[in-house]
Each structure stands twice: as C-alpha cells, then as structure tokens.
C-alpha cells in the first residue's frame, strides 16, 4: 500500500450529500476486467452536457484533495470507487461523514479519510470554496492538521492503528496474523461450542 505522510495541492469541492458509489463509478464503465478507472470516475456526470464537472475544470484537474458532503461513498461496496479516485490522483477526502465500508476501503488504498466535525467542516468548506483552486492546502498526517492558504489550521484525529498503517504503508494481513494464536484459540472455542459453524458445505 502507498504510504501517506502529507499531501499538498488544491482542494476540489463536491459539496453534495449522499454521493453514492454508483455515481462515483457507474457500472456502465465497469464492463471489463481492467476498466479505465480514470475515465470511469464520475463518468456520467462528466459526460453530461452543461458546465464542466468540478474535477474537469483546469485548476482542479490535479486536485489531490476532495471535499465532500455527508454519507460520502454510500450504496454499493464496490472498491473500484476508491481505485477510480486514486487513478485521478485523489489522496485525501474531507467529508461531513462517510459510509463505513467506503471509509475502510479508502484506508486500504492509502487514501486518508478526514472528518473535521460539524463546525470546523463548515468553516473549512467556506475556505475551500473561497480559494476556488487558486492556492494549495496541505494535509499532514503526522501533525494531523490541514493548513489553509491563509495560514489557518484545522486539526483532525485518525485512530492510532489507522494512522500507523497509512504512515508506514503496512500490510494489513501481516499485522493481523501477529494475532494468529488468538485467532486459532477463538476458532477452537467456536468449534467446540458451535461445531455446525465449522463445516460449511461438506
């Protein structure tokens, strides 16, 4: 997994609530084993007539930070939604809230999900809209801060293990298998107490 320490760049506002993974990666763009994730990202919105989609505006084309509404990534569990954001260069998403499965998927792909809390989030969104891609924000996972172009700082909090995994690009399976003795113990106990669970389709 890619390591994440800090990211500096423009922040693209997508201040809509309940953006679902069908919108992030429409299934019509996923009909091959190796789809073009970059094209798929928000594919239908980007192909629609009218004003260009925010990530297609020149100043946001390389935006590594996406600023989103509440319940971001809801709906289907498809991880391709995160892969498509990564293909576009998104490394950090600041949202009012995330769908839990989507949030877990960002962490597995070296993308930092941030929730600032209601008051800070509103203030941060205002700055992002006002700056309008004309200056860079800096997200620092070590200090757990976002630095704004005007010098203001916002603090966020990522749980210790999640932060360590992002900072060091750790292998999730290797980390878990350090608990192998405990896993075996739990398995043996379930096998004794509920043996029918230990044979699925034999």
């Amino acid at each position, binding site marked *: 997994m890619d390591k994440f320490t800090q990211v500096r760049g423009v922040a693209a506002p997508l201040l809509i609530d309940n953006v*679902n993974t069908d919108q992030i990666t429409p299934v019509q763009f*996923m009909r091959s084993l190796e789809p073009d994730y970059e094209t798929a990202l928000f594919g239908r919105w980007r192909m629609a007539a009218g004003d260009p989609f925010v990530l297609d505006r020149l100043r946001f084309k390389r935006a590594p930070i996406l600023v989103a509404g509440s319940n971001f990534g809801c709906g289907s569990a498809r991880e391709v939604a995160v892969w498509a954001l990564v293909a576009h260069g998104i490394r950090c998403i600041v949202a009012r809230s995330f769908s839990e499965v989507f949030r*877990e*998927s960002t962490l597995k792909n070296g993308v930092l999900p941030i929730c600032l809390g209601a008051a800070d989030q509103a203030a941060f969104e205002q700055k992002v809209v006002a700056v309008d891609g004309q200056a860079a924000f800096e997200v620092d996972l070590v200090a757990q801060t976002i630095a704004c172009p005007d010098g203001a700082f916002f603090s966020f909090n990522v749980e210790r293990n999640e932060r360590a995994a992002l900072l060091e690009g750790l292998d999730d399976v290797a980390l878990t298998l350090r608990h192998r003795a405990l896993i075996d113990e739990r398995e043996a106990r379930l096998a004794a107490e509920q043996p*029918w669970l230990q044979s699925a389709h034999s």
Partner: protein
Amino acid sequence: MNVDADGTMTLFEKIWAQHAVTQDDGKTLLYIDRVVVDDVRAPQVLKNIERRGLAIARPDLAVVVQDHSVPSFATHSGLGGSVFLDATRAAAHKHGLRLFDVGEAEQGISHVVMPELGLVLPGSTYVCVDSHAPTVGGTGALGLGCGSTELEHVLATQTMWVRKPRQIRIRLDGQLTAGVSAKDIILHVLGMVGLETARGAAIEFAGTMVKSLSVEGRLTICNMAVELGARTSLVAPDEVTFAWLASRAFAPKADVRQQALRVWETLRSDDEAVFDVDIAIDCSALAPQITWGTTPAQVMPITGKVPDMEDASRAGLTYMGLVGGEPLIGRKIDRVFIGSCTNARLSDLESAAVVLAGRKVAAGVKAVVVPGSRGVAREAEARGLRDIFLAAGFLWGEPGCSMCAGGGGEKVAAGERIVSTTNRNFEGRQGTGVRTHLASPATVAAAAVQGEICDPRPLMQDNLHGR
C-alpha cells in the same frame, strides 16, 4: 465493552462477543464463519491473493457465486459478456473454492442462496464483498459487507477488523393487511428514519410486525437496512426461523440440530439491554409504498402525492421527471422488473402471481422477472408460478442480479420509467437516465398489468375473492 453496566447484552453484542478475537484501538478483530466472493470481485480478489503470496485460511468456509454478471436471457451477453463468469470459474477452480456456477442446482444471488441453503445460520458471522451482505440478518446471522482488499484480508486470516457499531432497535408493530408486504414496511422505515440516524449502526428489527413475518420477509427488511446506512442488521431467530431452517440443505440435522437449537434459543437481546437509539414505528395502517426520488428514503404511500421539495432533493424530482404535488397513481410506465436480493424469493413471486393470475401485461410495457436462485426457479415452476408469469407476458430470466445494477444484459433507454422490486433508485443505477420507482412485488405486478402506477390492493382482492 460488549456488556452493558448491568451485564445485559443486545443480540448483536452476543454474536459479537462469541466471535471477538481481540481488540485494539477502537476496533475488534472478529472471527468470520462464512465468506462469499461474487463474480464481479472474484477475478481480482483471487489474483491478488496469489500476487501477495497469501494462503486462503479456510477454503472450506468460503463460497464463490456467479450472480452479478449472469445474462438473464440467452440472447443477452450480461455484464461484460462472459468475461467475469469465465474468470471467476477459472479462479475458483485454481484456488479449490466451492463454486455455485451458472446452470448448477445451487446457483443464484449470494444473499438469496446462502440463507436458502442453510449456509448462513443464526449466530454466524458472514462476510460478502457486497453491500447487501446484512440481508442474512433475517435469519439471525451477522452479515457484513466489505470492499475487495478487505475480502483478501478475510480470506487470508478468517477475520475482519470492525469498529463496534452503535446499537439501534427499530420496533415495528401492527399487523399487515392484504396487499402490503415486507418491502412496504422497509420502504416506510426508510421514509421515517432517513439516511442519517442509522449510519454505521447495527439495527435490530423487533416488534410484533417482525415476529409475524416469514423468514423471507425478514430477509427483505434486513436487505434494505444498508440503504439506511446501517453497517448490519438483525432479526432475533425464533420458532419461525427454526422451522424454516429444518429443511435447509446444509443446516444442521438430527442431534446436531438439537445442540444448535439450544444455542440459537439464546440469540435474543436481553430484556433490559440498552440500545443507543430506540425507534418505534406503527405499521398497522400501512399502505403500499413507492419511491418518488433518487434515494430509497424518498418514499411515499402509493395513494399519496409527490412532496413539494425546495432544497437539493428537487434534483431527484427533476431526474424523475416529476413535479411536487402530483400523484404517482396513473403515471404511465415503460417497464417493470421483479427480482434482486431484495425481492426474488418464492413468496415474492407468489405475491406478484396473485395479482397476475388471469391477467396480461399492458401493451407497451416490457416485464421481466428473474428468480433469485435456481432453487426459487425450480419451486416456482413446480407450483405453477412460472406459467402464470409467462401467460401474463412476463419474460422469465436466468437467476442472477439482472436489472438491479444494470446487469443481466437488458438495455433500458434514458428517460424510461421502471417500477422495480430492487433496492436502489439511484440516478443511472438501472441505466443512464433511467427512472426507477422502488416498490413491492405486488405493486410492480399491478403496474405491469395496468401500464401505469397503481394501488395493487383492488387487483389482489379481485383475484383472491374471485372476480
């Protein structure tokens, strides 16, 4: 952390405690009893397992299913043609995993076949690389959806790290009236509770209404808990569940069943268990429900009027080609679909067939029904349901997810209006520009017959009491 101060536990907390391996930094490592990989994710997941040099911990507890990409009709190529089906088959064989392949007796939608075969059981933990995994909560199993990389971890370790969700109980009381079903209940719940309250939570559905439902109805209710944003959902297993399990192919039999029953009977929330949120919804006067917008929570009684929106929800109305204040009854439709992990079980087809018997699909309406599994299809055929659908003019498809996620090969044109038994009315979900109304199998069947959105109750009454 699993026990309330006075030692009482919720049903969720009991299953959680029985499967907790260890805790660290806000997350618990849960032992997983059943793992399912579907055909959209299996090729990549199993390739990565190989690339990372991982071993599958318990291949005997895993199942690979073909559902999302199955062509509904021989003339269709399905999602991505046979590419996903072929790659999934090859990967399952290579890794020695049990595969329910197209054409085989057990094949079907993951969350339909796993309960149907007794492969998920009360008190078991179930992970599928699909958001609708919590469907199995209808049997008292703890289902968790996840992404592809997470599933690699589950296959390699037989565990998953999970943040303990908040505990929410939704009590549904009252008795169903004719023409109203589990789908109407959960749509009503979505309308009442919205998308914020239950996000990330574990929901237990309780109350007299839930107790009176069949296991299939409970599966429908738990299926759409994820649309509320819930991490998982459960119904406490009871006599209804135990009776239903007796005939499941892989459920414990004889002495083992007796032993299992002693455990299953303990799977209920303690009387004094504390929930973070307790919600009570009276469903006694419930009318059939239908969605009007582009989230499953934008729902109304079929006899009602589309609300007049002034905020961002208006975008949903515009997409749906509707204006506030108008009724939906009488609105012309182009298609109907009966199927998906929400409503493709035998009782769903039965309920639609009550409306369809002796009737024809209206001219100009294309009607598709896709059973959720081969098992459902076989039983529906044996009971004459398939004949009723065919006589009415429905197309009868091969078991799979079909038109729920724009798969199955059916091409729907932009602007077409479809009444569908599926779980998501998102923009573009069933095709670019396609307008989806979610409803029950009976409501969908009634719309097919009338060629417009209508209340299914009069049609059902006529057929039940003779015309």
